[in-house]
Every structure is written in C-alpha cells, then in structure tokens.
C-alpha cells in the first residue's frame, strides 16, 4: 500500500513533537489507543486564559498514518479556541491526508485524542467534560 504524499511529508517532518507539562493547569493531555492495538497517541494542548490553544504537542506510537494524523492535528489545533477545536472531525483528517479506508481508524484516534485533551483541560479548570464520541468503535 502506497502512502499519500501528505502522509509521507508529515511522517518525515513531523510537526510539534514533544511534551508539555501535564501537571500544569493550562495543559490538557489526551492519551488514547492501546499498545496491543498498535496505536497510542498522546496529544497535549496549552490553553491561555481566553480558552485559546497557544501550543500543541504530540507523541505517537503507531504506523505512518497515525503519526501523520497526530502531527496534522497539532497543526490545526494551534490558534483555535477549545470550542472551535471540538469541530475538527476525523473525516477532515482523512480528506487532508488522503487516508485509505484501512487507515481511517488513525484519524478516529486523532479526533479522540483532541477531545480527550480538551476534556482534561476542561475538568482541570472546573468545566464539565464534553461527551466523548463512541460511535466510531
């Protein structure tokens, strides 16, 4: 199976690889997936007092498409408010990276990671968590 150019580009030059301080109140961390399934994504956001995402970092254990999906997600997150970030849909990632059907689960995982990071931030800052999508699984 050949990878799309965009997947290769993100895979070769992943954006925003790294770690934010998960104990900081302004940082939301999402850790999704499982080693047994072959994919684990950790996505972190740093949010300012206006609920704007000022920084995003990721680390991913997984195939090229999983790495590319999380790299792309961090790019899209920066500069969005946490409410805007919730509108990122896995199918947007599929489209942008031209993922084949067998790799759609990578984009689903990225969407889950975004929502999970936002929830972590919300709960830390006294907001009610949003409902996690379950329909994909």
């Amino acid at each position: 199976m050949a990878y799309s150019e965009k997947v290769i580009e993100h895979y070769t030059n992943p954006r925003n690889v790294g770690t934010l301080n998960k104990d900081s109140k302004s940082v939301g961390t999402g850790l999704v997936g499982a080693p047994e399934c072959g994919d684990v994504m950790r996505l972190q956001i740093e949010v300012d007092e206006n609920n704007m995402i000022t920084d995003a970092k990721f680390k991913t254990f997984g195939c090229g498409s999983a790495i590319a999906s999380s790299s792309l997600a961090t790019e899209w997150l920066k500069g969005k408010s946490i409410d805007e970030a919730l509108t990122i849909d896995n199918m947007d990632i599929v489209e942008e990276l031209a993922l084949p059907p067998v790799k759609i689960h990578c984009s689903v995982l990225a969407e889950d990671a975004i929502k999970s990071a936002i929830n972590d931030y919300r709960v830390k800052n006294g907001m009610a968590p949003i409902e996690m999508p379950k329909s994909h699984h």
Partner: protein
Amino acid sequence: MELPIYLDNNATTPLDPRVLEAMLPYFTNKFGNAASRNHAFGWVAEEGVDYAREQVAKLIGCTEKEVIFTSGATEADNLGIKGVFEMYQEKGNHIITATTEHKAVLDTCKHLEKLGAKVTYLKVKEDGLIDLQELEAAMTEQTILVTIMYGNNEIGVIQPVKEIAAIAHKFGALFMTDATQAVGKIPVDVNADGIDLMAFSAHKMYGPKGVGVLYVRRKNPRVKVTAQIDGGGHERGMRSGTLNVPGIVGLGKACELCRLEMDEEAKRLSALRDKLENALTELEESYVNGNTQHRLPHVANISFKYVEGEGLMMAMKDLAVSSGSACTSASLEPSYVLKSLGLSDDLAHSSIRYGLGRFTTEEEIDYAIENTKKAVNHLRDLSPLWEMFKEGIDLSKIEWAEH
C-alpha cells in the same frame, strides 16, 4: 550498492540468472506440450521435465516418480492434506498440525473440519518449537496425518522433523511437512527425515513463481493421495493439467544450484544474519523472536519495543523487509505466529523480519544495520511509550482506552 535493498527473501526470492537462462528456450523453440507423445516438440518438452524431475529428486533424496509438480506450495499443501484425508478416510479422520503453520495448511485443515475431519492444532513453546510429548499425547487410532512445517516462514525455527515423523509412524499415521522455507536452504532428505509427503515451491529458492512440488512417498509405505484437480491424468493421476514446462525446468535448475551451493551459502548467510542480529540487539529493549539454535540460516525476526512495525518500515524506506504488525495486513490483527509464541500484542506489533538471500551482500547488511538503528531511535523519539518507559512508568499498569 543499489537501493532499495531486498531483505524479504522469505516472501519470495529473485530469480537466479542461471535459472532464467535454463528456462528461456522452453518459452520459445522448445514450446511443446510435455504430454504430446507423438512428435519431437512433445519429446523435447518431456525431456526437459524429466531432467528437472531428476534435479528435484536429487536435492531431496527421493526418486523421480515421487515428484508431483504443482502450481506452488499452496497447491501442494492442499493436495497433500485434502488428498490424504479423502484417500484414507476409512482409516480415520484425525489430522494433527500446529498453530504456527502457514495459512495454506491451516485453512486447508479448517476446510476439512467442515467435511468431518477432526483437527488438533498443537500450540508451540515460547521458542516456536512444538512439544513432542504433546504431539504424542494427541495421537489417536483415528490419526491419519501429522502435518508440521519444516522451517517457519516468520521466525525461521526448524521443527524436530525426524522425531515428529517417528511419533507419527509409531501410531500408523503419515507425516507431511510444508518445507517451503527449508528446501534449498538446509539439507532436507525425505528418507533420513522420515517424510511421507512434502510441499515446497520454486520461488523461495531462486526459481520462478507458479511452480512447486508435492513429494509423495512410493515405498515404505506407498502413499496415495486423491487428486484435487481432475482432467488429463497428468502426474500419475494425482495432478491433472498441462505441465508448466518452463517453470518446471526453472525449478529443476534452481534445485541443482541449491544442492551445489547450499553449504557455502548457508554459512555465509548465517554469518551475515548473526552480524545483523548482534548489531541490532545492541539497541535497548530489542528482542530476537524464536529459537536461535534450531533455525534457518537466513532469517532474523526482531522486536523493537515501543516502536510500531509499520511506522518503522516507513522510516526504513530503503529496506524491503516485513513486519508482524497488524497494520501491514488487512485484518488489523498482529502476526498469529508471533502471538503463538506467547508474545504480547505490543511486541508482535513491533517486530521486523529480515530475510537474507543469495544476493545479499555484507555492504547491504551494514547499511541495514545503520538504517534500522537510525529509524528505531527516530521513532522512539516520537513514541509516548518510550518516554513513559524511560520515566519508569509500568505500561502494563495503565488502563488503556480500548479502540
């Protein structure tokens, strides 16, 4: 050195130029049908086939009449297992095999289960070898066939074939082996090993694709299989269909070359394999899968913990290797062979198989070592699991979100 480097010789091998040369006339002026008995075109083709049959027989220590040409090892596995089941069903319906067999064996057995066969799938030990006591305990009066592979395609372990054959025979059952990865790589002698039926193919030993062999013993005991393809009664009635003359000639030549060059080649390849393996296991948290004493000379299967196999292969784009990772298959399940060894799913996802071959050079292995090390380190920098491991977090204690 040309890139990419081919290190997937368990999937298929390149055609040896000497094999191609032997085949070429049979595509052009020696185009006859080997079954045409009435003219020179047929005779010439038949001569080519007869000579190939001799070359095959010499390699595995059998007689020419025991060589049944097929389209490959999958067909030979099907013919051997289904053919024995049909032929010997009055004697019994029990077949014993192992969980690490190739799908050509496993799925054939599953098919026969629907037709009334009872099949025992022996588990393997951590090193990939079957437990002979378990085999013996599984044998019954109904057992007609024990079919256990010679060398494994993913991890290269060599089963104790002689001992398995002895147990099968003690209970009056036949012993069959899928020797696709072993024939031509290590000495295989059907008499010394006690083999009654044996499947293998040309394209794993520098011959062409689309041709293989089922060896069927004719003496002590005389084994019969019911044909699975009916027609003109070729191959002693066991496999009808016009013979693939150029393919068969190529298979014969490939067998001859393997017979003459196997010893040297095995020494050279196991030295290269060891060099590769030693260098790569210098990396932290990397593990060799399968028994390292009883194994084929040209295979190394290594798990690099905290790195996912497909992602890793993408980083080694100049190396053609394969992985036990789920992502390389449509099923999303990691390798059932590695799981049979008791490997956890995450280690199975992290495995890479290097299959060396006749045309692999030391320079290529050096390149593969550097390329793999770089890729593993790069992906570990990206891996949250590696970071957690380095922080001393016990990953097995984390409640992972299922997906």
